[in-house]
């Protein structure tokens, strides 16, 4: 097995038949052996029957992207075999069920496992075909049954005995094709980007999460609903995104750290509430999971198309904090920071994610996360008469939350005076607009203390890849192969011009790598006087792979 690219296993079948779960089980096995893991999950917007597959990549090095070529192909249906057999590095390293999959073309090699027969003999349900195939995979990869057994006991507690039987049958009927070594690396938890965002928000002090389901953000809602009890959270799923956002402003008014999650379509419906949060200075964090549009588009695939929308949504000029993490560590860290920043400056924050980050599964190394500094809130001193919008030097007004004896707390969507009473006076209007916008200067200063722009790869290279969000992983890997530099801005509002300029020193050619059709980041940096000479854009909803990106880069640089 090649060191750098590691071992890749593709398992595929019909949607709704446990492919996802099987991918995780395989990942856990390899994780147990001491490998770093990334799982790419590809599924259609179909509940049952559509073609779905997972690619599990295991490597000695940290990985955050999958490979085009795979070492093993586990085909639970014909589509899987037909669509993916060419990805095999070794023609015959595939495992299949001859009843389900006819293999023309290829010389009849591969490992045939008659799962149907085995299940009948064991009186096992359809779903256990996966277990059976996984058993066969373990043998083929030279992985001991004991390890498989431990994982299965943890992952499939119910009907475990039957599962073990079936797994063992598959194990027996296969033969060892190679031996995956034990690396000795200590294993790390497996986490999706969405779970990392959720935990980061909790770390930031989240009290309440409100969402209307929308792919790819829904898993945050599900995960937080599941763990609400452990963290004393309120998790609410109201009638619509308009309701979600307006509820959030109400919680914020009451001092509850609140976040919402959605995708582009739902975010549209939140824009009015976002502008309201800007005017009334109500901290709210919005997780915006990007997917290909316009409109409904490709709901279960990925894109990076909401950068400018996130930066400009909502009427009027107001300050917002916008960040796009690139992996679970960053997702955890910046989600926590976003919630803190929102409250420190009483502004809305937007966390841009996408399906590749949100639903991809990565190793999560919490020990590698920068330490999070907890910001304290500017609270009312309880002496001076309370003014919700006191016009202070840095524009941030002391907070009080109902019920608070002696304080009358007035939030207002109209332009208002310091007490929150509606005004149409031109002088007060200008003063309050200045008050709100003045915060940017302080927030920008604050941000100098954060790693808002990251640099990877060969820093001496005169060619740099510009990327954001989930493309970080693939860009870093491709850059390593080609000896290039990688520049990843994480914060987009306020834009860290100085840090970005610094990152660009020595760079003659900047190549923007984005999952959209227009080069949204390339366009954004022009506002700040920077320029990307080239763009590599992908907008079919599928992620870049290191091989694919390397190829495009070679073509471009030829």
């Amino acid at each position, binding site marked *: 097995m090649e060191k750098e690219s590691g071992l890749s296993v593709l398992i595929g079948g019909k949607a709704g038949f446990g492919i996802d779960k099987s991918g995780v089980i395989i990942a856990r096995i390899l994780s147990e052996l001491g490998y770093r893991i990334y799982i790419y999950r590809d599924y259609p917007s179909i509940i049952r029957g559509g073609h779905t597959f997972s690619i599990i990549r295991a490597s000695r090095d940290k990985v955050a992207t999958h490979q085009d070529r795979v070492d093993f192909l586990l085909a639970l249906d014909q589509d899987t075999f037909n669509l993916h057999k060419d990805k095999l590095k070794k023609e015959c390293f595939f495992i299949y069920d001859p009843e389900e999959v006819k293999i023309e073309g290829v010389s009849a090699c591969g490992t045939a496992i008659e799962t149907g027969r085995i299940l009948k003999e064991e009186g096992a349900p359809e779903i256990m075909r996966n277990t059976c195939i996984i058993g066969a995979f373990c043998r083929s990869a030279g992985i001991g049954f004991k390890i498989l057994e431990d994982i299965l006991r943890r992952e499939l507690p119910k009907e475990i005995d039957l599962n073990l039987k079936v797994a063992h049958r598959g194990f027996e009927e296969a033969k060892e094709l190679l031996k995956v070594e034990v690396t000795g690396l200590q294993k790390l*938890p*497996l*986490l999706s980007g969405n*779970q990392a965002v959720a*935990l980061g928000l*909790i*770390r*930031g*002090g989240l*009290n*309440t999460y409100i969402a209307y389901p929308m792919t790819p953000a829904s898993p945050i809602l599900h995960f937080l609903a599941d*763990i*609400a*009890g*452990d*963290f*004393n*959270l*309120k998790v*609410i799923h*109201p*009638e*619509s995104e*308009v*309701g979600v956002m*307006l*509820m*959030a*402003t*109400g*919680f914020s*008014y*009451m*001092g*509850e*750290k609140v976040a919402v999650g959605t995708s582009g379509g739902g975010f549209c419906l939140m824009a*009015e*509430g976002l502008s*309201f949060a800007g005017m009334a200075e109500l901290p709210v964090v919005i997780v915006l999971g990007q997917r290909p549009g316009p409109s409904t588009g490709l709901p279960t695939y990925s894109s990076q198309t909401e950068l400018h929308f996130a930066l400009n949504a909502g009427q009027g000029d107001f300050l917002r904090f916008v960040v796009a993490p690139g992996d679970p560590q960053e997702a955890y860290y910046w989600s926590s920071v976003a919630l803190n920043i929102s409250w420190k400056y009483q502004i809305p924050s937007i966390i841009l994610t996408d399906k590749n980050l949100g639903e991809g599964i990565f190793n*999560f190394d*919490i020990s590698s996360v920068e330490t999070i500094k*907890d910001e304290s809130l500017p609270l009312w001193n309880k002496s001076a008469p309370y003014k919700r919008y006191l016009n202070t030097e840095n524009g941030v007004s002391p907070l009080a939350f*109902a*019920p*608070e*004896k*002696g*304080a*009358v*707390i*007035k*939030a*207002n*969507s*109209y332009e*208002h005076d310091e007490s*929150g*009473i*509606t005004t149409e006076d031109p002088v007060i209007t200008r003063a309050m607009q200045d008050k709100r916008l003045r915060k940017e200067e302080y927030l920008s200063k604050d941000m100098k203390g954060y790693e808002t722009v990251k640099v990877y790869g060969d820093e001496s290279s005169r060619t740099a890849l510009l990327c954001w969000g989930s493309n970080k992983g693939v860009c870093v890997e491709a850059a390593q192969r080609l000896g290039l530099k990688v520049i990843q801005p994480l914060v987009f509002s306020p834009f860290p011009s100085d840090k970005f300029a610094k990152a660009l020193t020595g760079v003659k050619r900047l190549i923007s790598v984005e999952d959209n059709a227009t080069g949204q980041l390339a366009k954004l940096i022009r506002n700040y006087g920077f320029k990307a000479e080239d763009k590599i854009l992908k907008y079919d909803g599928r992620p870049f792979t290191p091989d694919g990106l390397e190829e495009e880069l070679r073509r471009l640089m030829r």
Partner: protein
Amino acid sequence: MTPADLNTYARNTWCPGCGNFAILNAIKTVLGELTQEGLPTENIVIVSGIGCHAKIADYINVNSFYSLHGRVVSPAEAIKISRPEAKVIGFAGDGDAYGEGIEHLIFAAKRNIDITMIIHNNRVYGLTTGQYTPTSPQGFRGRSTPGGTKELPLNPLELMLSSGATYLARGTSHGIELLKKIFKEAIMHKGFSLVDVLQVCVTYYNMYEYYDKRVYELKEHNSGDFNQALGKIREWDYNSDAPIALGKFYDKESPTFEDNFSKGASAAGRVGAEVKIKELLNGF
């Protein structure tokens, strides 16, 4: 606290003779009473939409949340959920609550969340200078319908009854004593309560005379009986001429939504959270 203490320095800009004054005076009296009976003033939170009605947020010296047009209900729900001890009163217009944001009203009623909605139902868009609303009668000539509307009005109380509201009443801006009574009942009611106030807009839809001729107060009415309530609610359909019943139509005990949530912020605090997160991660 006396009604006077509840005043703010904001200049009142309602038209002379506007029915909103009756609502303002009635609610100030009620809030004054409630505080004298021991309700801490700081526990009162009022929410308003956008419209003439909504200016009431500027006119009462209590916690207020001056929201968006059509969006009174959602923040009110959130405020109640986050602090169940708060008395949350939403003031909304008919365009506001029965039009732009009707979905929130229906779902708040469905959840039977313990908030009080007071609808300034002048049956016209006042602040945007006189267009028809969901409760304007058929044929109403507003600025968007110079030829008269071609649709029947909604009966908001009937809609609320079928959505699960557990307290429903109606008043008019000429009956301030009744308003005080039902406002207080509605606020004290545990569950979702709505008072539809036939608030007269003297400028765009002056119905004082029309209402004065037809209104009567409900007597020997069993507000615990759904069918009686429905019958009285359907007696007048907001369109044809019929007697207009005032007072409490419906009143029912039922579990409320806000009681289902853990209270307040995480006891563990942030750092505590990190510890628990690490525990959780062991399972991943």
